[in-house]
Structure formats: C-alpha cells, structure tokens
C-alpha cells in the first residue's frame, strides 16, 4: 500500500472525475446539494448510468460484471463519487445479496439474478431481523417448510429498509428446529409479489417510513430459490454481514462532510461579529473528527490490502463498523451544533423536490437535527456496535 498514487492511478482518478462531471445527472446533484431526499427513481437512474459505463459493481468478480480494479482504484472511485455527492448504490442488491449469489448460488441462479442486479432492474431488501431476533439473529423463527417443489414460509421480518420499494427480498428462514440454532437456517430468495406477503411501514423519529415490517402467511416459494444447501444459511449470512460492515465505514463520505462543515462554519455568524469557524472550541471538534477519519482511513486501507492478497475480510471489519458509524454520528452532532436554533424547526417539506415556499433556516440547517436522529440507527443496524465488540472479544482477543 502506497501513501502516494502512481501516475496510472492519477490518470484513473482523472478519468473518474471526467466521467462524473459529464454523466452524474445535474438534477440529482442539485438534490444532493440541497439536501432533498432522493427517490427510488434517482437511485435507479444513476445506477443505470454507471452500469452503461461498466462501473456499477467495482467489488464484483470480473466474470460477473465487476471492474477488475485494484484496491486503490476502488478507493479512488469511492472518494470521487463522494466528492460530487453521487449516491452509493442501495446496498441490498449490489453489495449484499449479489456476493452471496455469486459465491454460493448455482449457475442457474447466477444467470437469473445477477444481470438484473447489475443493471438495477430489480430492487432488493434484506429480511434477516425479526421482532424477537435482533442481535441474537440466529434465534430467528420465520419458518420454511418443504411441500413438494415449494417451501411454505410463515413468520414476521422487521426493520426492512426501503422494503416498500422492493421487488425481491432475501431471507434467513428456519428449516430445521431440531438442531443447534445456527445449524437450522437457510437462505431463501422471495419474490415480494408472491401471495401472502404484507408490508407495513414503521416510522422513524425523523418522521420517515424508512423501514417496514413484512409478514409472511403461507407464502409458497419455489425450491429453486434456495441458495446453496439447506441449513447452511448462517454461514452464507455471516459472509454477507462482513461485506455489509466494511461498506459501513463510509470514509469518503465523512471526509467530504467534514470539508463542507468547515466551509459552512467559516460562513456562519457567531453572533458576536465573527464566524463559528473561528471559534477554537469548534475548530478543535472538527480537527478531532478529521484525525479520527484519517486513522479510520488507514485502518481500512490496511484491511483492503489484506483482502487484495486473497484473505476474506476478517474481524477488522468490526473496527470499521464501530469507528465509521461513531465518527459519522459525531459529524451529525457537529452539523446540528453549527445550525443552532435553526436545527429545531420540523419542516421536512422543505427537503422534498416540489417545495416552493420560503425556506426556514440557511444551508439546510433544519435538516441537521433530523439527520442526527435518523443516523442513530448506524450504531444499531448491521450488527450493533455492542455485537461488534463482542466479536472483537471473541474472534480477536480470545476472550
């Protein structure tokens, strides 16, 4: 791993910049700049442009449509994307279920599912958690009982992010009750249009129905939708979870948000004739966040270097998840502090595309408390930060 980019890498960086300048849709960029919530269509439209360029899935193996980039190239790409505010793909298809399908799926499944994921034709959601199985995921109860060529699925999944948009859901289901809890779980792909599925929104404290409860009542799922072997689902799920966790670190996004915060602070009146950016206390806080992001960045680069020489992401993905989410949440706090009293108005309409009124608060101030509230989720999902620490204790420290 080099601290400086090679000439080829610099050229690649230039190519990425040019592509983003030319192709990242101006209207989506304006939405991101103005903190307007992105719609399903915005994600899909942008993903399709990346797909046409061949850059939809940098982390996939080349044979399935990956880019074949080095770790450094992936890093550059992520950084340039964040710089212009280009949204990451919604993770569930591209970054979660796809790696499971190309690693453990059969040829038929690869042909059937991967092209549509790559081209963003199909929206996926994740059906792991249940009301009584959160951190103790392996205790899940949603059952799949074999009946001829089908599994009959019954149970409740919850916290399904953006499940309201989903065409398909990948689920962990119980196929054997008689063995240790981890050994009776299977990995099943389910078409959301199948009769017997009901989706109910759950409203988060920022007022958005970002997650859902999904009910399954005698849902018939063809056996060819089973990934790998029956009762081996936990193994596949854990692989997927480590992927989920590395993506959570969010270094490029945190860097960009800190840069923006700095320039906003330099232009925010402190009420005494100066700017908040000149306040040594606030400067210290920004600096601490920047230093933490740097340490995280080099931890991630070390982890990536290990992966690129053939190792699977190991327990260090837990570090990335814990620190990445904590620093992002700290940045949320700083934005809210900078916004001051104007963080308090609850005016979400201002951040929808068709808002035509007079905005309250400058520079998206009124979005900052809502972001802070919403992003408390980051230390809860993807295996809570407490669970990550348990993993470090067990897998690294041998406790």
């Amino acid at each position, binding site marked *: 791993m080099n601290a400086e980019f090679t000439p080829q890498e610099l050229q690649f960086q230039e190519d990425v910049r040019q592509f983003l300048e030319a192709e990242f849709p101006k209207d989506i960029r304006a939405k991101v700049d103005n903190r307007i919530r992105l719609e399903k269509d915005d994600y899909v439209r942008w993903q399709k442009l990346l797909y046409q360029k061949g850059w939809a899935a940098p982390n996939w193996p080349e044979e399935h449509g990956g880019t074949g980039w080095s770790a450094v190239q992936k890093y550059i790409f992520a950084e340039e994307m964040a710089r212009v505010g280009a949204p990451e793909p919604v993770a569930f298809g591209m970054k979660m279920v796809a790696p499971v399908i190309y690693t453990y799926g059969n040829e038929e499944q690869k042909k059937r599912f991967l092209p549509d994921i790559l081209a963003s034709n199909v929206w996926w959601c994740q059906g792991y958690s249940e009301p009584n199985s959160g951190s103790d995921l392996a205790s899940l109860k949603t059952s799949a009982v074999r009946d001829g060529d089908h599994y009959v699925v019954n149970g409740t999944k919850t916290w399904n992010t953006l499940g309201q948009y989903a065409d398909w859901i990948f689920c962990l289901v119980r196929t054997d009750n008689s063995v240790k809890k981890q050994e009776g779980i299977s990995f099943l792909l389910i078409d959301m249009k199948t009769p017997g599925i009901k989706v109910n929104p759950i409203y988060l404290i920022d007022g958005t129905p970002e997650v859902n409860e999904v009910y399954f009542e005698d849902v018939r799922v063809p056996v060819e939708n089973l990934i790998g072997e029956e009762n081996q689902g936990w193994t596949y799920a854990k692989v997927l979870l480590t992927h989920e966790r590395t993506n959570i670190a969010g270094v490029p996004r945190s860097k960009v948000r800190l840069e923006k915060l700095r320039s906003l602070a330099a232009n925010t009146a402190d009420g005494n004739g100066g700017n908040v950016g000149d306040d040594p206390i606030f400067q210290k806080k920004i600096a601490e966040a920047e230093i933490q992001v740097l340490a995280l960045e080099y931890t991630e680069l070390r982890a990536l270097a290990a992966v690129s020489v053939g190792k699977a992401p190991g327990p260090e993905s837990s570090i990335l998840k814990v620190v990445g989410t904590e620093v992002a949440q700290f940045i949320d706090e700083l934005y809210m502090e900078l916004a001051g009293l104007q963080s308090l108005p*609850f005016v979400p309409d201002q951040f929808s595309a068709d808002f035509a009124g007079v905005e309250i608060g400058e520079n998206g101030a009124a979005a900052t408390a809502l972001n802070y509230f919403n992003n408390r989720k980051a230390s809860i999902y993807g295996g809570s930060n407490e669970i990550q620490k348990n993993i470090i204790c067990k897998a690294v420290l041998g406790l």
Partner: protein
Amino acid sequence: MLQDSVQKFVQRHYSFDDRNAILASPIGYSEECWALFAELGWLTVPFAEEDGGFGGLATDLMVLMEEFGKAMVVEPFVPTAVLGGGIVAALGNAEQKSAMLAALMEGRLQLAGAFYETGGRYNLANVATSATREGEDYVVSGEKILVLNGAHAAGLVVSVRTSGDQRDATGISILHIDSASAGVKRQEYTTVDGHKAAQIRFENVRVPAANLIGEEGAALNALEQVVDRATLCVSAEAVGALDALLQKTVEYSKTRKQFGTAIGTFQALQHRMADMFIECQLARSIVMMAAMKLDSDIDADEKAKAVSAAKSRVGKAIRKVGQEAVQLHGGIGITNELDVGHLFKRVTGIETLFGNTDYHTARFAQK
C-alpha cells in the same frame, strides 16, 4: 405538593397516547389542559406574591418543570409564563402588570418571547429588528426566529433596537406587540420535539408607544435574567426527561430477551446504565444548585454563571443519556412508536434552546 399535583394531572390527562393526540391536533397543545394549568394554580408559580403570584421561586419552577419533562408536556408554559410573563413582571409598569399578569395567570392570555435573530446565534444583544418612533407609535421592522408559541400567542414580547448598532448592549428595548397587528407575518411550524413555534417577520408594524415595557434602550439586563430563568426551567425539564429515559431503559433491559437472557444481564450494558444514572444525578444536582442561587440574593453575574454551569452540564448529560437510551433499546428506540424516541428528541431540543453546551461553557468561563 406541586409535584403531587402534576403527577396526578399526568396520570389522568397526559399519557403517551394523550400526548400524541394533542400533537396531532391543529393548534398542537390542549386548551383543556391549559385551563387546568390555570385552575391548579401552576400559571402563578413564576410570579411574586406582590404580582398576585405563588412566590416566583426558581426552586418551585424546578419541581414543576421536572414533572413536565417526564411527561413531555407541550403546553406553552415557558413561553407564556416564564418568558413573556417574566418580562412583564420584571419591567412592566403597574398598568401593564394589572392588564396582563392577571389574565395570564387565569389562563386567558398567551404570550411569546421573540428574542433571537438570524445571524445572532445565542447573543441576546444581537438585535437588528428596529423600532423607530413616529408620533405616538413605534414602527417595527425585522425578523425573529424560533419564537416558541409564536403561532398562537395573542401577545408578542419582542426585543427591538431603538438606538445604537446591531450588537450594542444599550439601545435594546422591549415592545408588547399584538400579534394581530398589520404587518406581522408568521411562518408557523412544529419543532422537531413537538412544540409549536414560528418565524416572525415585522413589516413596518405600528405599535403604540404605551406598549413599551420598561425604559427605552435599557432592557438587556432584564432580558438576560428572564432568559436565564427560562434556561433553568428547561434544564429542570431535561432532568425529568432524562430520569424517564433512564427508568424506561432499565425496565426495557429487564424484559427484552436476546441470547436466551434479558439484555440487562449483560455487564457491558449494565455499566452503560450505571453511567446514565451517574449523569442523571449530576444533572439533577447542578440544576438544584442553580435554582437555589437564583432564589438567593447574590449578584446577577453570579446567578448567570450558575445557570450557565447548569445548562452546560445538563447538555452533556443529554447527549450521553439520550444516545444511550436509544442505543440500548436497539431498533425500537428510533421509532415514533415508542416514547423513548420522543424523549430523546425533546432533550436534544432542550440542549440547543437558549444556548447550547459550548455556548454556556464559554459563558461560564467568561462570567
């Protein structure tokens, strides 16, 4: 006694579901509850006996607000009785007091304090809204942000500049402006923590000179003292809300099972709840200290310093206890379905109101 009375009220009228219904109503607070506040004498608590009040002790306000905090009461007690009423009590002449305070204490008059401006941050001396004398009137122009209860209050108590430059300590006056006056433009909204507020523009609003409260150009000291009392009030409210968060988290940890056992049996979480408890206790102590100082006869600067100490320390407790309560609940903690998320939002709002933690830490150091 006060504590008892609020607790009984909450039991009968202010469950989490009651509160949700109140929030969903068009005016965003309950007129029936407000009438009860008056009937139970709570609206007299901020006022001295000679003004017809209960005594005006900060220690009494503290008790009342703490209970309000536990139930997340959204009725505009602080804007009406502590900010608006506080200014009238501190600066008003006999006529103004008799016209306004009795009506206020009987629940017939709603007030709001409009003191903050864009670009002024938490500096009460940063007043660009101007009031120019024209004959028997002042003509007022400018804009105030985050006016709590600004949408419904009949009377707006507004800091205006009658002379000097934008941040001068002198030249600040207070006007009582009828919210129905021509040229008062209100942009109404709910705050993230469920209170009603407004951004208010004054476009050449004519206000009778008789509506000047106190001496022209000399309002800043009283304004700061009134806001300090309001700051103490919301700090006490936070103490109540933080206690509720701790209690709910401990209870939840005893019932929520993962890995075949209550999550409260995990020592990693037990220590976090012990830390929350410690924070709650420190917050309670420092608010009590500040309330007692406000009720003593030390000088104004020392009182201000005590209030800033309290707000700063409570702010730290808010971050810690608020975040931990949500985290220990897991996903359910950040949904609108559970009261925990709403308590978290309210305490977070309080952290910013009347100056955030950094502001009050710096003010403490400077006083």
